[in-house]
């Protein structure tokens, strides 16, 4: 067993072309939305959404439906519940804490009943080995495009509402509608991320890169750019490193993402 093996690398790369495209898109989406996850204090909510997304995917697998579709349904249901009941940060945390085990439990039930390939089961929780097929890639491209375009269009008002909700509302920003839209985008981003890194590790794409970027930048332009760079580096790097060893990509993705965070903290410390 080796952690890194690059002997047949040239032949392997074409096999993961789909994964690389997916990784690039996810890095872009995760890095950007992560900045808002941080400013709106929603890290824990992301984790909660991903567990319900997992449950949705697991049931889809069991019943023979489209797994990405199941994942999206689970995500959106969770995002809607958290958005509706958890307008205040304190309420939100308890609601997430209640939803999370419920989702995870249902998901495990569905997986236990499923009689197909075991690799599919664990993939949902801990990430894929590097297998994104064409229909799956199509779904990911569609989801990521919707999230990206919408996020860019609402960027300024969402920033305003995230920083100073009262002043934003006074200027006519539809703050409640925006927070609903944001929750839906977050749900979609989570559902997409679950496909690649698995439900348990979604935070490594949607939170860690943005958290790292915030350590070294205070600019509203540089921060999202760095966050995207960190997220893309983590996913693409993770896929390329995992390739040789034939292991799941998630440990590589999470480790790179974590190391970037540590480095950013060190840089912050040194700068001060």
């Amino acid at each position: 067993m080796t952690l890194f093996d690059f002997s047949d690398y040239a032949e392997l790369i074409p096999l993961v072309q789909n994964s690389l495209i997916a990784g690039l898109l996810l890095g872009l989406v995760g890095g950007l939305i992560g900045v808002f996850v941080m400013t709106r204090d929603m890290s824990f909510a992301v984790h909660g959404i991903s567990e319900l997304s997992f449950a949705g995917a697991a049931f889809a697998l069991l019943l023979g439906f489209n797994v990405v579709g199941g994942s999206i349904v689970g995500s959106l249901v969770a995002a809607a519940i958290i958005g509706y009941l958890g307008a205040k940060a304190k309420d939100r945390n308890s609601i997430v804490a209640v939803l999370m085990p419920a989702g995870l439990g249902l998901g495990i039930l569905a997986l236990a009943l499923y009689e197909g390939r075991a690799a599919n089961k664990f993939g949902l929780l801990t990430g894929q080995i590097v297998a994104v097929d064409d229909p799956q890639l199509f779904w990911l491209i569609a989801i990521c495009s919707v999230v990206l375009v919408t996020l860019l269009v609402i960027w300024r008002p969402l920033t305003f509402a995230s920083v100073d909700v009262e002043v934003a509302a006074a200027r006519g920003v539809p703050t409640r509608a925006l927070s609903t839209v944001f929750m839906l985008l977050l749900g979609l981003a989570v559902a997409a991320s679950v496909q690649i890194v698995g439900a348990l590790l979604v935070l490594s794409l949607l939170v860690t890169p943005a958290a790292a970027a915030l350590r070294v930048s205070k600019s509203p332009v540089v921060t999202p750019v760095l966050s995207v760079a960190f997220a893309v580096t983590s996913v693409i790097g993770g896929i390329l490193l995992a390739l040789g060893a034939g292991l799941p990509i998630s440990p590589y993705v999470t480790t790179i993402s974590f190391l970037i965070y540590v480095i950013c903290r060190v840089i912050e410390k040194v700068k001060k």
Partner: protein
Amino acid sequence: MTPVLAIKNASLAFGERTLWSNLNLEIKPQEFIAVIGANGSGKTTLLKAILGQEKLSQGEIEINGKAARSGSTSIGYIPQHRTIDSSTPMRAKDMLRLGVDGHKFGFPFSSRESNKKVQHILGCVDAFDLADKRVGELSGGELQRLRVGQAVIDEPDLILADEPLSALDLAQQKVIAELLDQERRDHNAAVIFVTHDVNPILSMVDRVLYLANGKFRIGTPDEVLRSEVLSELYGTPVDVVRNQGRILVVGTQDHDHHDHEDWH
């Protein structure tokens, strides 16, 4: 001349409870109005009605002759001081820019014009040294200074301020109040200033709107802030004491805190 703000025969009630009724008020350009009253007397609700966020039970509110609606660019708003999370990726100058284009949807490109406005306002509120600081690391006084700038950056005709001095110390209160006074003159804006303590702004106030028990009085500070006027308004004996240019209202339950805040 068209008044900046015209409140016509306005009433606002939630169910059985009437906050105020038959309120008539016209505000001229550059006028400075203090809105004073107990907690729950409908001060903030009045601001919300002017902002078009709260529907009146009766009557009308017009801004520059047009019905009040949400998102009017004729209004600048200054909220109560609240700290901003220190991890927020935003510098002081970025916060000012939100006052120019923060409400606009569409791809977030910044224009040269808004850069110019930001630079101008940084000068106005004496914040060049704060421009590149993280907003989460600013002191209360610094943040409120920026919020004054943010409220005037889009050249509003009317500034609404909701307890903007609360949580600031006395020295800072003075600085922010004077800055607001200066800015509204320079930018030709009228001010509606909601506060529970009129003293920091007493010298700049043209008229007072005093809300209590579903009733109100409007007039100059000398006309309204008198024992007999407020006693009648509250329906219980109230003393207005003046000392060294400061005003203290004694005898209303809701003004107990003045005992701590006004005598220093």
